[in-house]
Every structure is written in C-alpha cells, then in structure tokens.
C-alpha cells in the first residue's frame, strides 16, 4: 500500500483516535474533562485526515471548507483555555465583530455597494436579543440568536428595497441617515429599549449541564463564564464564516461580483439587479445583527450609546484595513478590534508619553485614521489583499 492511499490514512487515523481517547481518559480519569479532551483530540485527527485526502478541495469544496472551519474552531477553542479571562473576553468581542465585518465585506467587495449603517444593524440584533431574552428568559440561546438574525434581515429588507435604485453616494447617504437616526429610534421606544440606560440580560450566560466538563477549569466562576462565552462566540463565528465562504463561491456570489464589475453585462446575462442587490443587503444586515446579538450575550447587557454612527465608521475602517471583499480580511479586522487598545497602550508606554495627556489620549484616533488613509492610498485591498499579492509574487519567483 502506498503512503498516499486514502484507505491507509483512514486506518492510521482510526488507530490514532483510539490511542488518543485512551491516553486522555487515562490521564484525566474517566471524568467529564477526560471525555471532553478525548473528543477534542479525535476531532483534530478526523479533520487532519480528511484534509489530507487528495483532491478534496476541488471535488468536495463544501466538505473541505467544513473541515477547515471545524479544525480552526477546534484549535481556537483549545487555545482559549490557556489565556487569561480578559484576553478571552477581548477575543470574544473580536469574534463578534469579525462576523459583522464578514457581512460588510460581502456587501462592499462582492457586490460593490457601500453601507455606512452596519453599526445600526448590529444594534437591531443586539436589542432584539436583549428584548426577547427579557420577555422569554427560557428560550435557548441559539434560538434567540436566530430571532435576532431574522430581525436584522427584516430591517435589511426594509432598507434594501429603496436601496436598489440608488447609486454609490446616495446609498451611502441613506445608510448614514439610518445610522444617525437609529439611536433616536431607540429613544422613541424607550419603554422597550430601556432608554439611555439600555437593558441587561436576565441571567448571566452559563454553560448547559452536558457541557459542564468542558468548562470546569477549576478556577473562578468568572473565568468559567468567560471561557464559555468566548467558546460560544468562536463557534458562532465559525458557522458564520463557513456559510459566508460557501456564499462567496456560490452562484449568488458570482452574480454579485459580476454586477460589481459590470452591471449592464449582468443584466444582459439575465441577473436581476434589484433582487441581487437586496439579497446582498439582507445578508450584510443579517450578519451585522448576529454580531450585535452575540455582543449582547458577551457583555450581558446592551446600551444604545454603543450603536452610534461612530460604530459604523469603525466597522468600515476595520474591513478596509483588513481587506474588502475577502474573508480573511474580516478575521484580521476582528483581531485588530480585539487588541488595538493593548497595542496603543504599549506604544504609549514605549514612547514615554503621559497617558493622560492630550496627545496620548488622541493617539488611537490618529493611528486609526492615518492607517485608513494610508491603506486606501497605497494598499486599497487591505492587509489581506496585500498579503495575497505578496504571496503571488513569492510564488511566481519559485
């Protein structure tokens, strides 16, 4: 049997999986933790084996993407056990933001439309989540998230319909007006939205009993809760990334790219412009709502001040720097969002600036805005685009 033979690989994988299960059970005892760790190892081996099958990417792209996502989520979840609770919290926030960035990346990159209102769509999902949870505390988390997504999609439809006829700056203007109006819409319904104070979720998010073994890390309740929340965020983000990857590659994604590049040709081919544009809008707002709902879960509260126009600007900036129209750009943007304050305070410390002084306190804005300008002038495809370009150049040399 050749080493490349898939059957041999599967046999090796099965043996490795059995060995891994035995090792973890022995080392951790036949406790819930042991079972959990065994599952992790088995999953990794299964993914690795599947990915090593030849021609998987070309013949079974969906399976390929699923396996890659599963492996990525698995690795990420394992790493979270090693990190402090505040780092985990930042990661969770970054994961939620990366979902939002995915939606905007799709809208601007794949279909060429500009939206300055995704902060408001985040707010729709965030408040939908909080309002529902306060009135129906027993609904499972996954279901509440889906309800929030549905709300976001609905609002996206409402705004997307007039958007179909609008050219670039007018669409930007309309979404801007929506973003600015959103906080006032929230104030108008203050009996539902809690006014300026916002809402809190009725209970702290706790891991369900059957997952107990995974999260019982022996440290404080805060660490356990944060761990659970972070892992939930990573899983949800993984699912979102998986769907988006498939969407990019699907017929809908191709139609959108054609519209972006040459809308007349697209119409000639029979693609319905308004329908595709609205679909893109709905997808982008649904993703934003999911990110917002997840953020509410992470913070255990929601406040109208968070979902202002400034947030929409931040979202646009992050995806531009990360890379419009790419999936990895959304990931990069999420990481930047999660850790930018740490980087800025590191810079402040290194340069010896007074952290309370005028200049240091504006450093965040100066760097962020400056990065945005420089990216657009010199690397309009963002970090992801520049990396891809660089990779191609390296590849073409060898």
């Amino acid at each position, binding site marked *: 049997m050749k080493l490349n033979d898939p059957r041999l690989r599967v046999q090796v994988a099965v043996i490795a999986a059995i060995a891994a299960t035995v090792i*973890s059970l022995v080392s951790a005892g036949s406790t819930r933790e042991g079972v959990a760790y065994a599952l992790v190892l088995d999953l990794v081996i299964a993914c690795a084996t599947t990915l090593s099958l030849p021609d998987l990417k070309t013949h079974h792209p969906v399976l390929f993407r699923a396996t890659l996502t599963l492996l990525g989520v698995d*690795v990420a979840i394992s790493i979270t056990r090693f990190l402090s609770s505040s780092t985990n919290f930042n990661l969770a926030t970054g994961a939620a933001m990366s979902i939002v960035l995915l939606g905007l990346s799709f809208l601007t990159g794949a279909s060429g439309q500009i939206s300055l209102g995704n902060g408001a769509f985040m707010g729709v999902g965030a408040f939908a989540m909080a309002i529902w949870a306060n009135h129906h505390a027993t609904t499972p988390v996954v279901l509440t998230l889906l309800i929030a997504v549905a709300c976001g999609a609905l609002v996206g439809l409402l705004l997307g319909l007039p958007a179909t006829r609008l050219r670039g700056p007018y669409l930007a203007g309309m979404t801007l007006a929506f973003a600015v109006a959103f906080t006032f819409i929230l104030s108008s319904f203050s009996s539902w939205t809690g006014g*300026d104070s916002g809402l809190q979720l009725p209970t702290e998010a706790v891991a369900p009993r059957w997952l107990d073994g995974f999260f019982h890390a022996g440290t404080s309740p805060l660490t356990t809760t944060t761990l659970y929340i972070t892992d939930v965020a990573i899983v949800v983000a993984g699912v979102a990334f998986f769907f988006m990857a498939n969407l990019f590659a699907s017929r809908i994604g191709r139609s959108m790219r054609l519209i972006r590049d040459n809308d007349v040709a697209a119409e000639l081919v029979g693609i319905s412009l308004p329908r595709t544009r609205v679909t893109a809008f709905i997808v982008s707002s649904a993703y934003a709502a999911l990110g917002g709902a997840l953020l509410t879960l992470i*913070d255990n509260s929601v406040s109208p001040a968070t979902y202002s126009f400034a*947030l929409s600007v931040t979202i646009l900036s992050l995806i531009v720097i990360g890379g419009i129209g790419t999936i990895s750009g959304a990931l990069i943007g999420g990481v930047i969002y999660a850790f930018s304050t740490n980087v800025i305070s590191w810079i402040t410390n290194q340069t010896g600036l007074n952290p309370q002084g005028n200049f240091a306190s504006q450093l965040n804005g100066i760097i962020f805005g400056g990065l945005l300008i420089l990216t657009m002038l010199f690397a309009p495809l963002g970090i992801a685009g520049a990396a891809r370009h660089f990779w191609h150049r390296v590849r073409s040399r060898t």
Partner: protein
Amino acid sequence: MTITGTALLLCLGLVTAGTSIVGAGAATKKVPGVTATQITIGATEPETGIAASGYNQVAKAADAVFKYVNKHGGIYGRKIKYVIKDDCYGTPGFGCTGVPNTATQTHALLGIPVFATVGSLGTPTQDSVRALLKGDDVPQLFVASGSQDWNNPHQYPGLFGWQPSYNEESKIFAKYINATYPNASVCFLGQGDDFGTDGLAGLIAGGITPTAESLYSVGALVTTNGASIAPYIQQFQSDKCTIVVLDTIPGATDAAIGAALQLSYSPQWVISSVGSDPQTVDAPFVGKVPTDPEIGAISFSYLPTTTTNSPWIPWITKVIEADPADFPGFTSTSVLNGNIAYGAAYGVAFVEALRATGKNLTRASFLKTLQSVTFSQTPSLVPLRYTTSNHQGLNGGYVTTVISDAAMKPLTGTVYTTDSSTTGPVIVAKTKSSGIPAWLK
C-alpha cells in the same frame, strides 16, 4: 494535501489539544489585588469622549489622595495602586480614545486582578457591569452617580453608592423652595434617565407640583450642539415660571441658561450639584456676557464649599498640588472645583475604610467594616454611613448659591439630611463631620 502537510496538521492538533489538558489557568492569589506591599484597585471613567469635560478630573483627584497616602507609608505598609480605565462613558466618538465598552474595560481590571472597583462613574455604565462584578465577588464601591440602583444590598451585597441620591437632593431643594418661595410657579427640566425621573419624584415628594416638566435626551443635546433645550425654556417662559429646577449635566445647564438669556427670561435657577459647578458652567459664556449668568443660581453641596473655612479645603489643595502628573499647572492659589473635591472626598473615604479594616485585609472583612463603622472624619458635610440594608451613602448637605465664576457659598449654612423614600422627612442633620484625622494630616 501532502504527507508533510498532514503531519504538520496532526502535530499542531496534538499540541493544541495537549495544551488544553495542561493549561488550567493561573493559581489565584490569596486575596485578589492585595499583597503585603500593595493594594490594587480600579475604576472605569470617562477620561475622554462625550462626558469627559470636568468628569475626567474626578478619579484623578482620588488618585492624588492615594499618592499622598502612599508617600506617607501607605495603609499598614501597603501602597495603593489605582488603575483607571477609560470607558468613554460607554459611548464611542466625540474624541473617545479609550475603549467605549465598560464591560471590556471592567474585564481588563478583573484580569489584573483588582481588590475592588472604587469610584467608577456613570449610571448606565455601572448598571451594565453589576452582574459581572458580583459574579466574581469583586466589591463595586462608591459608584459616582446618584442613582438608587446602588442601594440594593440583597441582590448586590458588594455594591455601594457614595453621593446623595438625586431623590434626596430634590427633596432638600423642595423644602428650601417651599420655605423661601411659597406659591411660586416651578418648572422642571431633567435628563431623560433616572437622573431626571428620580429628581422629579423627589421634588414632588417634597411637596412641589411643577407647572411644567420636561425631560431632555442627551443624544439630541449633542447632535444639536445644545439647541434642543431652547424649546423647553421657551415653554417655561410662556408658562410664566418664576423658578426653574434643572437636573442637568453641565452641557445642558449651559444650554438652558443660554436659551433663557436669549429670550430675556430670568427665572430663579435651582441646579443639581451634578451640573452646577461654576467653573465648568461659566466657561462658554466668558467674553460673551458681562457677568457670569449662573451667579445667583441655587444649588446643593454635600462637600464644604471653597468659601468656608473647612480644614479640608487647604488639605485637598495641598494634596492636588503635590500631584503635578495628574494636575499640571495646579498651584496653591488655584481654586478647587466640584469635580476635584468629589474625587478627593471618596478617595479619603476609601483610605479611612481601609485603615479601619485593619492589617488583615480581605474583601469580606472590608465590607463588614464598611457596613458597621460610621466615618465622620471625611470631607463630606455629613458622616458617611452604610448599613447592611442601606448602601446609598451620604444622605445630606446644604443649599448653596453661586457667587462667582469659580465658587459657591452656603445659603443658610444649615445642613439637612433625608432619605430616598417619598415619605421620609427632610430634617436638620443631627451629626456633622468633624475634621481631619491625625494620621492623614
């Protein structure tokens, strides 16, 4: 995928899975935030952003007190380290350069870890992290807000307010208005959150029936650069109110006074301590009107004004002057403002509570001390007293009047106390604070 690729992936997977078995989190310290030589506490404050002007001095003033105490050996040999995180009042934009998310900043504090949060500012911001702090057993002390949300000992035993509630302040205003301006027509303008609604409730509980009452939204205030307040003032003028009560932040106070000036309307202003600091309120009018339009306005203070001869005034001045990092340019002739006095006062309260707890410092022993000792040697006019059923904090002060663009003075000098209920009476304070403890001089 090649064999090499597979092998690499397998190794990566095994390593990460392995670390998940190994990594079990750092061992926790005995008392989080406390070592033999240091106590670490934290706070989330609006250092930049929409609420920064004025309020960004509050925590710095407390920090100045801690630095002073540290210079004199600390408390039982432990120096106090105060970590201030900028949460921009939870609102992005407006020059915010912190992280406009109180939960994120609070998590960062908990990761240090901190013994407690002391003096974190804001009602919605601190409401949003109550459950988080309770879940980690971290005391949430001296929240800088007059909301009654901090007085909930059964649900949040580690949560404590400090300043008198908005309700209590309004009841004392009502008593003064009824005594001095009987039968006057009173109009009320308050912020559209519990600052305004509690304030209005307190006025009504104190026996005032406003002719007109309005609540303003902070969002509209900011978007219109203050013009959104004018219609309310115009309404008060047509209703012929002679007294206007303002439960407003300084920006809205300015907008209200400015609108009244434009309409040639001069009611007697009664302004909450939250938004009446003369230095802050007068700043926009400098050079535009001959005299400070706030002069003559009535307000409330639970700390001694700079015009009185309380020994705390020179003490606080000395402490602030000794902290040029936080207060560059502050000299012995600079006049204290309300924000500085506030921060210094809760800073003193904290160090006294620390000292009263004793050398064996745990969260439990600290909270027990806080709820059993009466602190009558802090800058506040009335002693600071918590019980197991009352975590609100200070409960009284005196009515003041603005005399210049930098200072207020007490109107009658009588210090009143009350409670936040609708029926509790406003009475003359039975006990008052008594000077500076020897060890703090």
